[in-house]
């Protein structure tokens, strides 16, 4: 035992740790087990990569946990990987907990070796240890000795080994451990030579790591330290050689501490034969997708309706008790504002729930595999498919689901076209208009709206991909994890943290706009007909006249900015009770169809916009979405009217 001075210091200032690991190793589950509900979710400064932080107290010591993005390595060309490496090098957390899948040490320890090179204080967690022991025997102590760092086996989803891990974290904090794996004499000579050339390196950056990065040809490091020229620098591909030597080192370690006794992939391979089947895979996918869709919207609709009616009753109730401006503000702004935020909660939570289940089982990665080719046609990869499909339900969770797309370019592109997927809130408008104007063909007309949205999304994906978001499509490579039974706790936690994040961020924006809308629609006269909203509608109607829209339709569209459901409600107020008769008297079928298309295409609702801003971390892209959609809506509606007038 050493002196307890570092330990006393730690007790005062607390401990900072970082979690790191490959995707699909149960990192999130472990994070949840460590921190419980004490966690917050946000973005890393300036970028759109999710940042999760949490806190726990163990034996009187406060431990702050940062969950780094799931990754395979530390390149400077990937945003997430650069964040992680900058964090480790610059912020120097006291302990870095490296979570590895105990059944797949060969590949997972590669990241561990990269961490050791960075001179960070590593604890290796062998997660899903129970699953691993079914197919192999692991000598944990031997592994710890060979790696030169503590190794803790855990089964995070059952909370096993968490106490031991917390003990190990406290014990390791404050120590500075140096351990690394040798690359063989020939490579080590080169590393030493490069290290000697690096004289003016800041003390915080380990020279061996810089030497290795230079050997790998890392662009960022090259820029920082300049090209290091060695006279007898052998002409080798440093990146490949180092990778080979790392795997060799891992193989040598595993030979001494792992004994294989079975095959773990049997079941997964058998399921994949069906799920990924060239032809059968697609109908199976459609059934799963349809099921997920129906479930999340059927399950949420009654709750949403309940919230909706609760708030309208509350609104009526309050307006009968309170009068004048106060009453109008309470019922029209506070209550209906709160209501319009809360109505979004059930579909959002259910969609997040379904996503979490599909992710946790391992099916999500298979969907990307199945759809990669089709999405490639419009310049996207398989990973963009699910977020686009989710848009048919609600664009808000759909846009948030783009977080799984690593390539920033493809992620922004997927966000930009997402509002063109006709969300369920636009359906009431289609149902109303199609019912009034296209009775026998109402179904076909409604379906044509969905098709129009998809078609335009495809076209614009190609257009944007070749103009504002130029760049090569990212190469497709994705790990297919073994199928697992989802853990209830992980799924519920994922649903909750994502949903809470939406409430906090988007909720405030939506609420503000609702209050603004109340003001515009009830001032200066107190009635909607004489309100600022109606005035703006009348002011804009010359612009909308070529489309055949009168000021009432224009005002309704303005309110639709809030939530597309509001379009029907506003029309009801402005035209009075005999809505269908009044509507058919004021516009013709061609304009009615144009009105449907306009509703489909013009500005996403305020919640979707808030989330576009949140996810792109850019007002520029938010403004871009609004502008292109307005332009698109107007152009398409005008086109429909012009062509329609020619034919009919």
């Amino acid at each position, binding site marked *: 035992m050493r002196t307890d001075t570092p330990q006393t210091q730690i007790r005062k200032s607390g401990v900072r740790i970082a979690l790191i690991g490959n995707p699909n190793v149960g990192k999130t589950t472990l994070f949840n087990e460590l921190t419980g509900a004490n966690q917050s979710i946000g973005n890393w400064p300036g970028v759109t990569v999710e940042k999760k932080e949490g806190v726990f107290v163990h034996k009187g010591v406060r431990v702050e946990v940062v969950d780094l993005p799931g990754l395979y390595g530390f390149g400077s060309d990937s945003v997430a990987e650069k964040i992680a490496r900058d964090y480790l090098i610059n912020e120097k957390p006291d302990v870095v907990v490296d979570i590895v899948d105990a059944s797949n040490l060969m590949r997972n320890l590669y*990241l561990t070796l990269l961490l050791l090179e960075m001179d960070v204080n590593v604890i290796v967690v062998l997660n899903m240890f129970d699953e691993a022991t079914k197919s192999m025997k692991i000598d944990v102590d031997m592994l710890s000795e060979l790696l030169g760092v503590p190794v803790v086996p855990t089964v995070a989803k059952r909370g096993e080994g968490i106490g031991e891990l917390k003990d190990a974290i406290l014990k390791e904090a404050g120590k500075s451990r140096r351990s690394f794996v040798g690359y063989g004499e020939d490579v080590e000579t080169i590393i030493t030579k490069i290290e000697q050339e690096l004289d003016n390196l800041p003390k915080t950056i380990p020279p061996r790591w810089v030497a290795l990065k230079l050997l790998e040809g890392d662009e960022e490091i090259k820029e920082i330290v300049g090209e290091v020229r060695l006279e007898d620098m052998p002409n080798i591909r440093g990146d490949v050689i180092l990778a080979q030597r790392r795997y060799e080192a891992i193989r040598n370690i595993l030979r001494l501490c792992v004994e294989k006794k079975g095959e773990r992939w049997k079941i997964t391979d058998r399921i994949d034969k069906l799920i990924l089947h060239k032809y059968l895979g697609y109908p199976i996918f459609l059934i799963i997708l349809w099921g997920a869709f129906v479930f999340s919207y059927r399950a949420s609709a009654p709750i949403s309706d309940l919230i909706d009616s609760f708030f309208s009753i509350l609104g009526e109730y309050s307006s009968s008790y309170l009068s004048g401006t106060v009453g109008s503000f309470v019922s029209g702004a506070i209550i209906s504002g709160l209501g319009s935020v809360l109505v979004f909660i059930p579909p959002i939570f259910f969609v997040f729930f379904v996503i979490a289940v599909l992710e946790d089982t391992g099916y999500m990665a298979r969907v990307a595999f199945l759809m990669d080719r089709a999405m490639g046609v419009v310049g996207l990869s398989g990973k963009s498919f699910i977020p686009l499909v989710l848009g048919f339900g609600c664009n808000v969770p759909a846009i948030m689901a783009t977080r799984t797309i690593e390539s920033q370019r493809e992620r922004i592109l997927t966000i930009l076209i997402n509002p063109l997927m006709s969300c369920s809130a636009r359906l009431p408008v289609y149902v109303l208009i199609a019912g009034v104007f296209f009775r026998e063909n109402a179904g076909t007309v409604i379906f044509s709206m969905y098709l129009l949205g998809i078609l335009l999304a495809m076209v614009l994906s190609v257009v944007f991909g070749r103009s504002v978001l130029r760049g090569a499509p990212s190469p497709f*490579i994705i790990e297919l994890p073994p199928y697992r039974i989802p853990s209830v706790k992980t799924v519920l936690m994922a649903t909750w943290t994502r949903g809470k994040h939406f409430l906090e961020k988007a909720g405030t924006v939506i609420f503000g706009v609702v209050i603004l809308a109340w003001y515009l629609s009830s001032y200066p006269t107190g009635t909607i007909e004489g309100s600022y909203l109606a005035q703006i509608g009348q002011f804009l109607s010359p612009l909308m006249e070529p489309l055949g829209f009168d000021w009432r339709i224009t005002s309704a569209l303005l309110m639709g900015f809030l939530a597309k459901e509001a379009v029907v409600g506003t029309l009801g107020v402005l035209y009075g009770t005999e809505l269908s008769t009044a509507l058919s008297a004021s516009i013709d079928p061609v304009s009615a169809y144009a009105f449907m298309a306009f509703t489909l295409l013009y500005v996403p609702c305020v919640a979707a916009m808030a989330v576009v801003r949140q996810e792109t971390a850019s007002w520029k892209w938010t403004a871009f979405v609004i502008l292109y959609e307005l332009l698109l809506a107007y152009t398409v509606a005008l086109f429909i009217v012009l062509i329609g007038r020619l034919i009919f």
Partner: protein
Amino acid sequence: MDAGVGLMNKVRLNELKPHEEGVVVELMAGKGLTRRLCEMGIVPGARVKVLLIGHGPIVVETMGSRIAIGKGMASKILVEKIRK
């Protein structure tokens, strides 16, 4: 040496049929892509087995994991086919 025989067996990864195996010989990719392949276990010397071929991407087994790779990427991986 036995370069003639070796060359005859050298194929692109996307040319292997399901259940065929090979040893990675060369990655004909840029720096970023090479790094990503290495990190995921596809390095020269590694044994890979094609499990499935889809419409575009393929699934290979390597280093105890299952990796899906796009066709374009797979065509940049040269392997020495193992004959059984």
